C-alpha cells in the first residue's frame, strides 16, 4: 500500500524540521494566501492536483493535494507537521487524533479535500504562543503518562477534548471516552491520572 498512498514528500528531513514548525509555510512553499481554490461542484479528476484551504493551529494554509490524500498525510507529508502520528492507519488506534473545528477526529480516515475550510489543531498547536506547555502536556509529563511516546500526541489531543466535552467525571468515564486511543505500552492508569489532574485544576 505504501507506494500507492504516499503523496510526494516535501524536500526536508524530519530531523532538520524539528523545532522549526513556525516557519513551515514559508520554508516549504506552502501558500498562505486566502484565495484557496474550493473543490469545484463539478468535481476534480483522479489525476488532478486540487487545492485545499485549512486553518492549522491558527494559520491559514493552502496546499495542493490529491483526491486520495488523507488529512494526516497532508499534515505530515505536505506541511511537515509530523507531531501527528500514523499508527494503524485504519481509524482504530487514535494515534492520528487531531481537533477538527474543535472536535477530536481520526485524521487518517478523513480526506484532505473533505476537510476544506476546516480549523485543525495538532499537537504542535496546543502550547501557548510563548512556548509554555499546555496543562495537559505538563500533566502527561508529571504523571509519566507514556513510555515510548508514539501514541502521546493523539492521547493529549483526545484528553483535551475529553475534558472540553464534559466526559471526564470519573475514572470510568475517562476510560470510556478515551477508548479510541490505544497505548501499547499500557500507560493507561497514568493517562487517567493526568486527565483527572487537569480536570481538577480547571474546576478549582
Amino acid at each position, binding site marked *: 500500500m505504501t507506494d500507492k498512498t504516499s503523496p510526494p514528500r516535501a524536500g526536508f528531513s524530519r530531523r532538520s524540521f524539528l523545532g522549526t514548525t513556525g516557519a513551515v509555510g514559508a520554508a516549504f512553499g506552502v501558500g498562505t494566501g486566502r484565495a484557496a481554490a474550493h473543490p469545484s*461542484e463539478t468535481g476534480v479528476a483522479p489525476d488532478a492536483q486540487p487545492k485545499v484551504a485549512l486553518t492549522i493551529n491558527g494559520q491559514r494554509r493552502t496546499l495542493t493535494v490529491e483526491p486520495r490524500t*488523507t488529512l494526516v498525510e497532508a499534515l505530515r507529508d505536505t506541511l511537515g507537521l509530523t507531531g501527528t502520528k500514523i499508527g494503524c492507519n485504519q481509524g482504530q488506534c487514535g494515534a492520528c487524533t487531531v481537533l477538527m473545528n474543535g472536535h477530536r477526529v481520526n485524521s487518517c480516515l478523513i*480526506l484532505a479535500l473533505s476537510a476544506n475550510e476546516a480549523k485543525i489543531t495538532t499537537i504542535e498547536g496546543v502550547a501557548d504562543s510563548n512556548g509554555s506547555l499546555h496543562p495537559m502536556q505538563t500533566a502527561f509529563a508529571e504523571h509519566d503518562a507514556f513510555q515510548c511516546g508514539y501514541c502521546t500526541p493523539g492521547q493529549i489531543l483526545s484528553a483535551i477534548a475529553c475534558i472540553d466535552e464534559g466526559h471526564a467525571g470519573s475514572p470510568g468515564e475517562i476510560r470510556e471516552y478515551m477508548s479510541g486511543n490505544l497505548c501499547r505500552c499500557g500507560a493507561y492508569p497514568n493517562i487517567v491520572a493526568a486527565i483527572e489532574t487537569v480536570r481538577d485544576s480547571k474546576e478549582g
Partner: protein
Amino acid sequence: MLNFAYHSPKTLADAIDAIRNSGGDILAGGTTMVDLMKIGVHEPPALVDITGLADLEGHEIGPDRIRFGALARMTHVADDADLVSVAPVLTESLWKAASPQLRNVARLGGNILQRTRCPYFRDTAYSQCNKRDPGSGCAALDGGETSHHAILGGSSGCVAMYPGDWAQALIAFDAEVHTQGPAGRRTIPFADLHVLPGDTPEIETILQPGEIVTGITVPVVPALKASHYLKARDRESYAFASASAAVGVELDGDTVRDVRIALGGVATTPWRARAAEDSLKGKPLTEKTAREAGRIAFADAKDLKGSAYKIKLGADVVAGALMTAKSRAQGGE
C-alpha cells in the same frame, strides 16, 4: 489507495447526477469508505462527497415520530438528553458504537450501511471471499476462524456478520428509511433495507445505484420509552458486539402488551427476533419468561466452529436487556 475523482455537489439532484455520471460511490463521514479504500477492498472510480448537503443534517423529536437526517452525526444524536429520555435504545446503541473520534465524524446514513468486519473480507491476501469477489468461495467457511461470524442468516457462501448497533434499534422499532435517487423518492421499511447473503453476498441492500439515503424516521410507541441496548463485547469498550440486544417493552401491570427484540453481533443483517417477541406477548415479564424468550431468539441459530458461545451469551443478553427495560417501564432506571 488508488486515486479517484472527487465531487462535492451542493444539491441532492447534483449528487444523484454525479453518482450516475461517474459510476462512483457516496462519501459522507467516510469512516467505513475511506478505510475500505485504503485496504484495497473497495476501489471506486469516484467519490461524491455529500457532506455539503446541509438539508440532510440534524434530527427532531416529534409527538408521533423521530426524524433523523442522513447526515446527522452519531455524537450529536447520542448526546441528545431529550432523546435519552424519549428513546434510550436509540442513544445507547450509538453511544456504545465506535470511539468518540469516529462518532464525531460518522453520519447516520453511513452508519446503517457499514460493511462487515469479517477479516477475510477485509484482507485481500485471502483470495476467497464471495462478498468481495463473487464466486471465489468463503475463506471463513473453508476452514477459517469463525468465532465472530454470523450464526443467524448465513448461507453456504457467506457468514459475514452485520457489525452495526444502531440498526438493531431501528429494526426493533419499525423504522423507515427515506431515499432519493434517479427513480425518484421512496420510503423503505428498515427491515427491508438489508438482504440476506444467499447466493449473492455482494448485494447487501436493496438500494439502487445513485439512490441516496436522505433520512430515517422512527415511530414513537410506548415501548420506545422503556427501551434498552445491551452490548456484550470482548473488552469493555470500543469493540464490535459479541452479542447485543435492542429491546423495549410496554407493560400492563406485569403483563406484556408490546415487546421489541432485535439481535446484534450474531446475524448477517439487522435481526428482529419476532418469535421471541411473540412468546412474551400477553404474558407476565419475569426473569423466567425473559430467559425463555432469549432461548427462542436463538432457536434457529447455526453455530460455526468456535461460535457456540454466542448462543448462550446472546440468550443471556436478551434476558438481561428485557429485565432492564421492565425496570424502566415500571419507573426505575
